[in-house]
């Protein structure tokens, strides 16, 4: 509508493709292509192979995938619980209290992830809370980092929820707990699952804090990918990256299916 002439429009679109294809489309494509290649020294990779996938299908890499999935599941459940709880409580508070809670729960976004890792290391390396060297510290770090996103999503969803539902329910004699359980949470369900998916994806790809604190027996996928590329096995790294992307996508797809089923409007 902005560019009326057909040829000008075509020129704009061409320019658009020239920008988008190398910047956005190619990176993901080359990772997928490289994961199936034995060698890449020309324009195109050479030697199609499944060897990299066979390599990662057992041993360390599979462990890493399972480790990442377990970490992401635990972290997103924890973050969703804390974030939803805080968002629901903040909504009922006065404006000033709400602003404080907002600031507190969004702070982890602003603090560098590496520093979050460092701080956990500093705080939990001595008794009584000796978590350094345990899987729990990784899960804790991920939970801290993704709680902010859960809080933000639920707060946004709450502000979109028509207060008339809650008021009608209260007017009909429902106590606050009953309103929450029977009306608010069901209506928020689509947003909650979306938030859970986001948290899961972010945790699956978390590297910065993890690099600071991972114990030798709890290596999530991103750490493995780094280890592989760092020792020069780029193609193995690519295969692991594809596994990471696929797992993330599958979870996001699953969540969006639940979401469409659960959305009433």
């Amino acid at each position, binding site marked *: 509508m902005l560019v009326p002439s057909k040829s000008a429009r075509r020129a704009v679109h061409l320019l658009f493709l020239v920008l988008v294809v190398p910047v956005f489309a190619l990176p993901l494509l080359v990772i997928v292509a490289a994961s199936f290649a034995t060698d890449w020294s020309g324009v195109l990779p050479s030697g199609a192979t499944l060897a990299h996938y066979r390599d990662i299908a057992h041993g360390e890499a599979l462990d890493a995938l399972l480790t990442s999935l377990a970490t992401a599941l635990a972290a997103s459940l924890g973050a969703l619980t804390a974030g939803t709880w805080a968002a629901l409580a903040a909504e009922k508070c006065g404006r000033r209290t709400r602003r404080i809670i907002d600031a507190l729960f969004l702070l982890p976004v602003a603090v560098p992830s590496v520093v979050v890792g460092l701080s956990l290391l500093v705080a939990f390396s001595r008794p009584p809370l000796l978590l350094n060297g345990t899987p729990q510290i990784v899960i804790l770090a991920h939970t801290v980092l993704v709680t902010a996103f859960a809080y933000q999503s639920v707060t946004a969803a709450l502000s979109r929820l028509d207060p008339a539902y809650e008021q*009608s329910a209260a*007017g009909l004699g429902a106590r606050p707990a009953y309103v929450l359980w029977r009306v608010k949470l069901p209506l928020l369900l689509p947003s909650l699952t979306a938030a859970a998916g986001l948290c899961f994806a972010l945790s699956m790809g978390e590297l910065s804090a993890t690099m600071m604190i991972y114990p030798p027996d709890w290596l999530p996928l991103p750490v493995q990918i780094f280890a592989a590329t760092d020792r020069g096995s780029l193609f193995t790294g690519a295969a692991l990256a594809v596994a990471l992307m696929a797992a993330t996508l599958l979870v996001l797809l699953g969540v969006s299916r639940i979401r469409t089923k659960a959305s009433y409007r």
Partner: protein
Amino acid sequence: MPAPAAPAAPARNPAPAAPGPASGIRFDGVSVSYGRHGEHTVLDALDLTVAPGEVLALLGPSGSGKTTALRTVAGFVQPSAGRVLIGDRDVTGLPPHRRGIGMVVQQYALFPHMKVADNVAFGLRARKTPRAEIPGRVAEALEMTGMAAYAGRHPRELSGGQQQRVALARALAIRPGVLLLDEPLSALDAQLRSGMLAELARLHRELPGVSILYVTHDQIEALTLADRIAVLDRARLRDCGTPQDLYRRPRTEFTASFVGTANLLPVTVRADRDGVDFAGRRLAVPVGDGTAGGAAATLCVRPHLVGLGARPPGGGPANTLRGTVTEVQWRGSTHRLYVAVDGHRVLADPRELRTTPALGEEIALHFAPEDAVLIPAGLTEDGAGHA
């Protein structure tokens, strides 16, 4: 997940109590103010009583405070002063879920994730009504609103009018002593609205014990449905009375112009209190006891009571006005004439005319003395209502 803000639960009543004495509502000096120092007053010292079984319409333009008044009864707005009573119980500090009221809001707010039957059962389940009793009560409420056939549907599958009925059924299922209706018909189109009005009137005849507080900005709804109308404007109660009373004997200019259309003429009461002076001529109108001779007042005459010609065709006493026609509108069954009488605009709504007067034509108008109402000055701003 625990609920934020759960006040200490009192001894809960297991089921709705036996049909107690019909409740009624009382506003006792209820004020609502906002702002840091309470500088924005949206409701100013409202005193009003809704008798048990009565339908009271809160009528006013938007921003008059009528919805705020209703929400203080429901518990969604906390008065900054005064008390709200339901029956003889002071509910001012009670949270909404312990007030035992039924409420229908403008947009219905049916729970989209529940079927119609579950929506109607919601209040019963929330109040821990014995499980065996619920289906019967749901069926009864749906029957009453003519929605029994839709029990298995989801709200999104219903039309606006049907959602309205379900919202009513949901409110009635808990057998409230008090029903609050907040502009319940404003989301419907004109035709559905008049149908629903008749329906509401029927429901009220079937439930004679229920007090209804009906908030509306539509005078037709108020005139049709209400036993009494309370007129609100700019946070204050301006007038209160039966529809006939407000229409025929408005006590303030605001009531006269908001309930129906009115010609409001500035007049002076004659010294002998035998009629009034309007633009230098005497008009014969009844002067009430409260009006002193020589006082300024406003004369209210309804346009449909203003006839064409100097005298009524059948004879009898009449006041005559002469003026110039400035505008003629055809409105189907009537004509509306705009006539300039000594610089004042007078409206007349005669039945459809065979020949209409031309613009600029000099014509005569008449009205009977008993059709005019004298509104004393001074009552216009301060509000005259007492419930």
